[in-house]
């Protein structure tokens, strides 16, 4: 390449191309859905898409659609291609892997089906898809696909046949709780915002900041089916009386931002956003705001400050955003997944939704399964499934047949759950009782080679880096706790340090201003609760049972 222009040209060109009709849809009989979400794209699934399209064209198959879709779930085995009509999944498809592509073409042309039968895979069979129903089925950049799959029927039903009160009643009936972490009842939050009076408008905000290490649920949803989130927001706007919405996405998610922006434009063109939605007087406008990737900006008051152009630091509540949010107006703030649950709730009814899940935890939950399991990826399971089913059935057990040690849920403010708790059902109450919490849905599996003190240190390192620095206990306390944990992992800690760590953790949890500081000591508490002997081994015996820490030796 001789000039900068030359170097730039291919990418620029690719970006400017309109959403291509991949193969004439004609009399489509089967389709090949090629994952184009960030995970598979990083393994060149865009080239797979091109290669497959060429082959299908060369083979003269006119009744096959080769489509760009979002996340197919089994991220560990990408690039993935699914043939939904035949229930076949092809994994590890490389753009230059002639055999795999041939097998795909044979399958598509009605010959011997290749790949794996999805119905037989526990990874798929244990899952129930509500939020992810259309992920991997529709082209995320074509609203027509979403409409074909029943998209915007819920919004149309809402604005043409339901009163705002009826919409809220349906959400209340569903038992849906916030998927962003705290699990606050969504119907109750909507009711509060709907009742709040305002002479100059209200706002609906979607929290897509997703900063937990290892979490990629919200990103996948936005990359795979952004329309469903927009539809949920518009329904929320109708229910609470808001005409403007913001989606706050972190800058580290460029693909999600791109697809979201294109989804907004297309929804506006199709009359599902903007003025006179579905031919009624209801109007709802959505804008995207991009965050700079600070974890604390996921905290709702910091997020609102950031949208307003201020520094992203939390403020004391009350007043809650429902009473005084963006520019002092009543503001509804929910998570991506919470909104994505809304269209199915409206379409199929709160009662149907409430029939999935357990007592106080209704519906499904999307998890980003990561760490030492075979099948890492994006999963959606009914609440109440056991950890064991997730780790061993869906997750396929541990990589290399290693021994299970713990699973971490809830991100940096969550906890580590040991083997004894593998049969615990996954719901808000059980997780909280066990000293962890649901969080936004990150789930990291750890094997025997992981040192739990080191894990606590890792999360504390994260919190001290991400503390906004506004309030003292979190700003200085996380740094001091990190120091104590570091000392212990180096074999230089004392029993007195352990006491200090515990009392400091207690103080930080109780006195910090926002959830970041209040939750930061949690990994310490949960590892102390279930793996105290590992702390003591480092302190008393100067050894790391997992063999993960490099100890400085005996001298203190």
């Amino acid at each position, binding site marked *: 390449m001789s000039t900068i222009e030359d170097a730039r040209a291919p990418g620029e060109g690719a970006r400017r191309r309109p959403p291509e009709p991949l193969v004439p849809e004609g009399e489509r009989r089967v389709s090949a859905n090629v994952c184009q979400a960030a995970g598979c794209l990083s393994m060149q699934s865009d080239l797979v898409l091109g290669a497959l399209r060429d082959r299908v064209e060369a083979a003269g198959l006119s009744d096959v659609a080769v489509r760009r879709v979002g996340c197919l779930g089994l991220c560990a085995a990408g690039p993935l291609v699914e043939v939904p009509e035949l229930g076949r999944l092809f994994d590890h498809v490389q753009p230059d892997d002639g055999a795999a592509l041939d097998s795909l073409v044979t399958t598509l042309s009605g010959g011997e089906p290749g790949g794996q039968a999805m119905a037989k895979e526990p990874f798929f069979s244990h899952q129930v898809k509500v939020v992810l129903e259309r992920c991997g089925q529709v082209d995320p950049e074509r609203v027509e696909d979403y409409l074909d799959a029943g998209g915007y029927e819920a919004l149309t039903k809402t604005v043409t046949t339901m009163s705002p009160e009826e919409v809220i009643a349906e959400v209340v009936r569903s038992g849906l709780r916030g998927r962003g972490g705290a699990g606050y009842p969504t119907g109750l939050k909507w009711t509060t915002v709907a009742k709040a009076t305002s002479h100059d408008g209200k706002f609906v905000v979607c929290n897509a900041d997703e900063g937990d290490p290892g979490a990629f649920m919200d990103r996948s949803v936005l990359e795979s089916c952004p329309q469903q989130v927009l539809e949920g927001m518009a329904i929320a706007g109708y229910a609470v009386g808001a005409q403007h919405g913001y989606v706050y996405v972190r800058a580290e998610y460029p693909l999600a931002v791109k697809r979201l922006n294109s989804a907004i434009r297309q929804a506006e063109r199709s009359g599902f956003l903007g003025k006179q939605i579905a031919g009624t007087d209801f109007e709802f406008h959505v804008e995207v705001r991009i965050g700079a990737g600070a974890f604390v900006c996921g905290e709702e008051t910091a997020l609102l400050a950031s949208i307003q152009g201020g520094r992203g630091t939390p403020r004391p509540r009350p007043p809650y955003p429902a009473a005084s949010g963006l520019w002092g107006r009543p503001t509804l703030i929910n998570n991506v997944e919470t909104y994505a649950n809304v269209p199915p709730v409206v379409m199929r009814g709160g009662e149907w939704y409430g029939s999935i899940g357990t007592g106080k935890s209704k519906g499904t939950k999307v998890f980003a399964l990561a760490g030492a399991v075979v099948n890492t990826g994006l999963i959606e399971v009914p609440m109440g499934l056991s950890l064991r089913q997730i780790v061993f059935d869906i997750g396929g057990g541990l990589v290399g047949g290693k021994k299970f040690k713990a699973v971490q849920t809830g991100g940096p403010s969550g906890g580590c759950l040991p083997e004894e708790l593998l049969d615990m059902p996954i719901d808000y109450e059980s997780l909280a009782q066990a000293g962890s919490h649901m969080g936004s849905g990150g789930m990291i599996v750890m094997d025997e080679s992981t040192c739990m003190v080191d894990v606590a240190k890792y999360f504390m390192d994260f919190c001290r880096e991400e503390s906004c*620095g506004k309030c003292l*206990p979190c700003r200085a306390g996380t740094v001091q706790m990190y120091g104590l944990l570091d000392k212990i992992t180096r074999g230089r800690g004392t029993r007195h340090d352990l006491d200090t760590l515990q009392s400091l953790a207690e103080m930080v949890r109780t*006195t910090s201003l926002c959830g970041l500081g209040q939750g930061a000591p949690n990994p310490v508490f949960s590892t102390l609760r279930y793996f105290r002997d590992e702390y003591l081994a480092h302190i008393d015996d100067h050894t790391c049972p997992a063999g993960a820490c490099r100890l400085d030796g005996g001298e203190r």
Partner: protein
Amino acid sequence: MSDEVRTLVIDGRDVAGASGQSILSVAEESGVFIPALCHLAGLSEVGSCRLCMVEVEGTARLVASCVTAVEEGMKVTTTSERLLAYRRRAIELLFMERNHVCSVCVADNHCELQELAKTLGVTHFELPPLHPACDVDATHERFVLDHNRCILCARCVRVCDEIEGAHTWDIRGRGTGARLISDLGKPWGESTTCTSCGKCVQVCPTGALYEKGRSVAEGKRHRPYVPFLVATNALGTGRQL
């Protein structure tokens, strides 16, 4: 906001305040001492030092008394073993966070941090000092900013914004990297918004902001002048939450 009377009990004493008034402010008026460093009567509240947290009967969590409004029938406890332990720990965290060696500080004997440590009976520190080497900005013709003594209470930020109306100060960075900045990061001496009024220096609880030419222990504040300014300023209704 209507000023309805609210009666409550603080440390066993019946007291009265107005609706919307903070617990801390009612306690101050009633002669009950609650420690605080970010709070200063007349400025808006930020609730960031967390020293003023108190127990409220029927609430499992502690509440920051500077940002919690009084309610009818509330029963507030401002001192307990637990609260005292947390407050001592908070003072320790502050002392260890930057360089607070009183014997060489301009604010020695005129420092609210030092005074609180004495009042709360802080006798020793368990945690190690972090000792970051912070800058000193002496570019202003009359004042000095020594980051080594700054506790990030943001009183200067608020007094400059809310009373003087200049908004010279703000805070940059996060976590322990958070720093007070003037004019988006310019040296103080090059600030085009600073009016050199010195209010920030007067409200600083420690030796972070001081007048040039003062030596160790000479940084006495002319504090009464702030409430006076506040009283004359319509914005300064810090009493109402």
